[in-house]
């Protein structure tokens, strides 16, 4: 356990040294600060009577807007935004973890310790996930506190979105680790993982419109690939659907079903399992 904790600590020290952590927290803080300073809401009897952004009044029309609906809309939109941005940043910040570990002159230092190869790889994965979790939790938590402070509305579901965002990151990070063990290249790991992300979007759209295909094998191929790839679109919808609840579109709420999560989880587990297998068998 001591050895694994040391490995996780090293992941954080590396992130700090590479400015990944600092840059992310600086950008997050700037965004939160801008939101805190720039947005001023005038709430009367639970409804938004007026709003100012950067000191400029926003025209509200004759009717006051229901504040709860407005805040939920903002929170679900922000959660969706964070899902995409957070996932991209997490992959950028952690894709080097395996290739750097496998560098000649470095890998010997780690593998010569009394720790198995699989625990070494998994501790780096855990380090990467903790790093991503700290980033997502900071931004989501700070934004939630700001919303509570400005509007006095408390929506715990907004915080729960972090779990879904991290689930998507976990599956993609596992794939990045697999590519890292196969190629020892950070650049290839990032590109391949982003390719999976974008392909999953394409596949989700094709899967929803299989009627456009004339041949049965094309439908079979699209369906097969759709279920093999992680469901990044569905998870994104689920993030938004979870936060917006009854107020959001029905397609987001239906995305909160078990099937996309099971297949995405399986994708992550298989990727991580193969990464462990490859790493434990490789000769250095």
């Amino acid at each position, binding site marked *: 356990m*001591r*050895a694994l*904790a*040391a*490995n996780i*600590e*090293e992941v954080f*020290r*590396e992130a*700090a*040294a*590479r400015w990944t952590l600092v840059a992310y927290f600086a950008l997050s803080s700037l965004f939160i600060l801008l939101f805190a300073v720039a947005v001023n809401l005038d709430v009367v009897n639970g409804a938004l009577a007026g709003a100012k952004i950067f000191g400029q009044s926003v025209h509200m029309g004759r009717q006051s807007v229901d504040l709860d609906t407005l805040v939920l809309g903002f929170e679900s939109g922000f959660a969706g935004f964070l899902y995409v941005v957070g996932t991209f940043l997490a992959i950028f910040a952690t894709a080097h973890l395996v290739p750097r570990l496998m*560098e*000649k*002159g*470095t*890998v*010997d*230092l*780690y*593998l*010569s*310790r*009394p*720790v*198995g190869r699989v625990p070494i790889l998994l501790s780096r994965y855990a380090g990467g996930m903790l790093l991503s979790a700290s980033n997502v939790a900071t931004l989501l938590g700070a934004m939630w506190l700001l919303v509570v402070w400005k509007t006095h509305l408390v929506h715990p579901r907004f915080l729960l979105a972090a779990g879904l965002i991290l689930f998507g990151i976990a599956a993609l990070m596992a794939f990045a680790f697999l590519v890292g063990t196969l190629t020892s290249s950070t650049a290839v790991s990032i590109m391949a993982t982003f390719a999976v992300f974008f392909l999953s979007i394409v596949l989700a759209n094709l899967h929803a419109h299989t009627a456009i295909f004339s041949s049965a094998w094309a439908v079979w191929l699209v369906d097969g690939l759709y279920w093999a790839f992680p469901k990044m679109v569905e998870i994104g919808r689920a993030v938004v659907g979870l936060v917006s609840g009854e107020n959001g579109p029905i397609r987001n709420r239906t995305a909160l079903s078990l099937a996309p999560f099971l297949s995405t989880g399986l994708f992550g587990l298989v990727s991580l399992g193969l990464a462990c297998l490859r790493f434990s*068998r490789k*000769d*250095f």
Partner: protein
Amino acid sequence: MSAAIEVRGLRKDYRAGLGGREVKALSGIDLAIEPGELFGLLGPNGAGKTTAVKILLGLTHATAGSASLLGKPITDPESRRRVGYLPEGHRFPGYLTARQTLSIFGRMSGVPPRALEPRIEDLLSRLKLSDWVDVKVKKFSKGMTQRLGLAAALVHEPEVLLLDEPTDGVDPVGRREIRDLLKAEAAKGRAILLNSHLLSEIELTCDRVAVLRNGRVAAMGTIEDLTKKGKETGDFSKGYKLAAAPLTEELIADFREKGASPERVNGHLRVLARDAQHLNSLIDAARARGTLLTELTPEKSTLEDVFVDLVKAMEPPQ
């Protein structure tokens, strides 16, 4: 007493690239290194030295054979619990300080954090890095990085040390300090396997050596045994460097007649003497001709000579 490092019939075959030719890196080597022993592993490039060490540490998987460290099979990560390793061309994370490096690698070897701090201070002091404790490793010179590598190999107080070129990039004074440190560690009962190209370092440091050639142990023994001239050929004549003036052709002919096989080498003579009596008869002959002797030195076969002879023996005849 069981050997600290034991290797039996270790073999490693691999393919050079996809569909490439099969390379036999190790063809069944046997080694046994006792606690407290300083053992040198020698061999030309590609002889299999690094492969052998990497197999011992689980970095590379053996094709056949077995090995154990302190009685535990190398397939068990626990076998590395009391083993310190200094790889050649190691690269510590540059963003860590010396203290952080030793702390992280010490904990990875299972040392409790409380026990680490005094150990780190002591090691860095012994390796003359006390003033660099909180400096990032990326600012270290090659010699300093090498000393830090040695500290990282020793931080968990191992019973076995596997060191690949430990004095690489270290200045002569530093090399001597490292030699002294290794001897002190061996005196504590630690088994040390030294893998180096610097034959003089091995000669000055090790008790016993093995020379690897084409993945096999070509020679093994104490330095004294290996450098004993004529051990294998049965020729026990001893060579001497003789400097004298004048070195006339008559004198050389006289020496030849007495069976000394004289050779002119860089202005002096190289002669062979069967024993002390034979040597004295040669000196008498030279003095009788009025030759003034200025130097008479016995030739010593070095480890380098043994190494070169062994490597040349494997080369195909021209």
